[in-house]
């Protein structure tokens, strides 16, 4: 085995750089893992001592995040994006091919510790997949040829940083621009305009705009800002939610790539409105590659007087922004889990009330907004609230960025005024023979062709931005099963219905997929769906049954043709029960399986 020691001076360095603050625990763990790829037990112990927190707490946090490892991993960690769209583009076959070329089993490090090949939840590259993360860096447009090259590079032990640049080239794929993507912002211009208006008038313009949150829930931004402005407490905080974990969504990545100034300027506009001094941008671990450019933009804005003390010369307007990294946990996009994660803890959603606007980051009044929401406030500052509200619909003003992937000629980013019909979007992206569209990601809604006249708007088909197209060749049961697996993997495990229910649902879906399902399984599925919907603690659990409920309602034959008999329900699967014996004996031949034909009927 390699030496895994992380020296105590290394630990002390990192801890000191973070001012020995326990709420930096997650950021510290991410940095400490950097050299060897995992966190040995002694490191957790030493870190707990250095921070003055319990070791159990450190272990609890390290264990929560998918990208933190408390057991050895390969020196090359190759994680295939587990998005259904990429499955359909052959990602599973590519992964199998890579495993066989490297002589490794999936999900297990190779015996020499060289490489581990596994999967990870959607990495936000659905328009240019199949994709993987190679030691955290996205590798795009995987093909058999590229997989061969990767296998060779790993065998030759070429560091990931020396792999061909073309592997890592991320396209923006912007195919339709409207107000947001046409914006050519001179850094500071929007801020200048809002400062000229004065605080109260700026808030009034925000109200006039009727801007609603682009992160999913569609809450009116001005109402949120006013609640935070009015909340008692001086040290207010603005948080930009760049966790973008919803499968099939990648518009925030493109905004951070092409309009980073607008995003940071939007945060500063929010700070001006509510009186915040501290800003935090929570960047999902998958987008870590964007951090250097984002830091450079922040540095440039500081030297231009757009961040720091007395912004644009305004006495008393002090505000700065810091970037925090996530580490592979979809639930951290939920705003209260995000706050917990920003405080260095496990990403467990909080009890609400109190809401973040009154008690948020470290108990201080906090505005949490999505990347796109914040970028849009620049348009309002520049052109006024009324002009902003002139596009879109009355209840859904302005435009919406859609992340389009799947069965269409031109996947990528499309910006439309709210109110655009599904069929129009399908036409523009070059989709034909479309069977269904999943709008809003795994947590969203599946539309059948008879619903394609419906419109993208909070009052009709709301969305955080994902738009996944499935043509008539696709099996929508498999789509739903993939989403259920996603939720089971991402459940934080805090509350009973979601922790147990998402896994039960996955078991039931797998049973159907294996051809062992019966009609009573459909009844169980519907019952679990209902418990998830009604009793879950946060939006993850209550949205988890959506894909199943939608497909059961609209595409029921996809389920029924899998039922083995309409009423017999083998609760115990003999073949599964033999799996452990098969593993132990290294057999997987037909005779080591209990075939369904022999099962008691």
């Amino acid at each position, binding site marked *: 085995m390699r030496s895994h020691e992380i020296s105590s001076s290394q630990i002390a360095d990192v801890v000191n750089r973070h001012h020995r603050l326990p709420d930096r625990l997650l950021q510290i763990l991410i940095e400490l893992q950097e050299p060897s790829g995992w966190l040995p*037990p*002694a490191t*957790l*112990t030493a870190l707990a001592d250095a921070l003055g*927190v*319990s*070791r*159990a*707490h450190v*272990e*609890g946090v*390290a*264990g*929560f995040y998918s990208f933190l490892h408390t057991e050895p991993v390969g020196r090359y960690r190759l994680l295939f994006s587990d998005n259904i769209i990429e499955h359909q583009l052959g990602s599973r076959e590519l992964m199998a091919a890579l495993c066989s070329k490297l002589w490794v089993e999936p999900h297990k490090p190779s015996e020499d510790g060289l490489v581990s090949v596994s999967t990870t939840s959607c990495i936000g590259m659905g328009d240019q997949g199949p994709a993987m993360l190679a030691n955290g860096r996205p590798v795009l447009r995987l093909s058999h040829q590229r997989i061969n090259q990767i296998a060779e590079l790993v065998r030759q032990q070429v560091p990931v940083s020396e792999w061909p640049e073309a592997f890592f080239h991320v396209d923006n794929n912007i195919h339709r621009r409207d107000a947001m993507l046409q914006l050519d912002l001179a850094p500071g211009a929007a801020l200048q305009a809002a400062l000229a208006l004065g605080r109260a008038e700026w808030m009034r313009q925000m109200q006039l705009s009727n801007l609603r949150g682009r992160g999913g829930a569609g809450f009116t931004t001005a109402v949120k800002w006013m609640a935070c402005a009015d909340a008692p407490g001086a040290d207010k905080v603005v948080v930009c939610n760049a966790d973008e974990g919803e499968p099939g969504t990648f518009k925030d990545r493109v905004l951070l790539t092409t309009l980073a100034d607008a995003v940071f300027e939007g945060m500063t506009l929010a700070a001006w409105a509510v009186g915040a001094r501290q800003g935090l941008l929570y960047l999902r671990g998958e987008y870590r590659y964007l951090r250097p450019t984002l830091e450079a933009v922040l540095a440039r804005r500081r030297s231009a007087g757009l961040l720091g003390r007395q912004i644009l010369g305004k006495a008393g307007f002090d505000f700065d922004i810091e970037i925090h990294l996530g580490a592979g*946990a979809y639930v951290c996009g939920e705003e209260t889990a995000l706050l917990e994660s920003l405080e260095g803890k*496990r990403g467990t959603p909080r*009890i609400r*009330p109190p809401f973040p606007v009154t008690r948020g980051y470290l108990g201080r009044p906090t505005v949490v907004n999505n990347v796109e929401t914040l970028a849009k406030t620049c348009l309002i500052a520049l052109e006024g609230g009324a002009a902003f509200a002139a596009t879109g619909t009355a209840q859904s003003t302005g435009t919406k960025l859609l992340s389009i992937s799947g069965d269409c000629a031109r996947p990528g980013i499309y910006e439309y005024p709210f109110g655009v019909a599904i069929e129009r979007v399908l036409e523009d992206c070059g989709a034909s023979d479309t069977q269904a569209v999943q709008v809003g990601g795994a947590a969203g809604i599946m539309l059948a062709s008879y619903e394609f006249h419906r419109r993208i708007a909070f009052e009709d088909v709301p969305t955080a931005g994902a738009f996944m197209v499935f043509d008539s060749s696709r099996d929508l049961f498999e789509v739903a099963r993939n989403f259920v697996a996603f939720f*089971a*993997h*991402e*459940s*934080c*495990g*805090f*509350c*009973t*219905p979601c*922790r*147990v*229910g*998402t*896994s*039960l649902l996955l*078991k039931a879906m797998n049973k159907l997929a294996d051809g062992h399902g019966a009609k009573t399984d459909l009844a*169980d599925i519907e*019952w679990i769906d*209902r*418990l998830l919907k*009604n*009793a*879950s*603690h946060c939006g993850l659990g209550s949205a988890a049954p959506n894909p199943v409920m939608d497909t059961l309602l609209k595409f029921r034959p996809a389920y029924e043709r899998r039922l083995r008999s309409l009423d017999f329900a083998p*609760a115990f699967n003999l073949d599964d029960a033999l799996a452990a014996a098969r593993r132990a004996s290294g057999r997987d031949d037909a005779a080591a399986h209990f075939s369904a034909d022999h099962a008691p009927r």
Partner: protein
Amino acid sequence: MSKQFLFDGRPVPFEDGQTILQAARAAGHYIPHLCWHPDFPPHGSCKLCIVKVGGRHVSSCAMPAKEGMEVESNTPEINGERRALLQMLFVEGNHFCPSCEKSGNCQLQALAYDLEMVGERFAHFFPDRPVDASHPDVLLDFNRCIFCELCVRASRDVDGKQVFALTERGIHKYLVVNAESGRLGDTDFAASDRAADICPVGVILHKRVGFARPIGSRTYDIQPIHEVDMKERT
């Protein structure tokens, strides 16, 4: 006039800051709960305390009472959902009540009787959770953990020790203790800690007292939990 809301059709008075569960209890109405404990702030994880308010489900242990609310609690619909949550907790762990030391004193078991849970409906997970017998006075049988975090909270907030924490997530979540060895015997845990007597199920067990009182004559063998719980209220 104090403020009030309707609980299953009956008026319940409350003070600002009280949750639905607190106010209902004070007025003599029982709401099932597992992760809630009168001595600790609400946690909101088990969801046994769900009630319906204006057609929406909420956790009564965490939701502040509001004037004029109409709360549904003891209805076939809600009790059916509570039963299913219990079934989920049973299949998630390994609960063999007849051989469990806590039998008769276990709140999970008692609630299952109270809510007339006859079978477990869902497929069992049969997780592999070893027992920790390293501590001289206390045994940990992780097979029965329902992740209420009462031990985590009691150790941290009352004992000032942080002996317990949860790690991993989702269905793979499990309880760890504050030692690199992972053994309770290597922590500063003591049998006199508050955390040693807080577990609602049979995870944290004092050694050598197990069957001092025979099964059949224990707390919930004699009286159902909804009565015991209301008797204990202060």
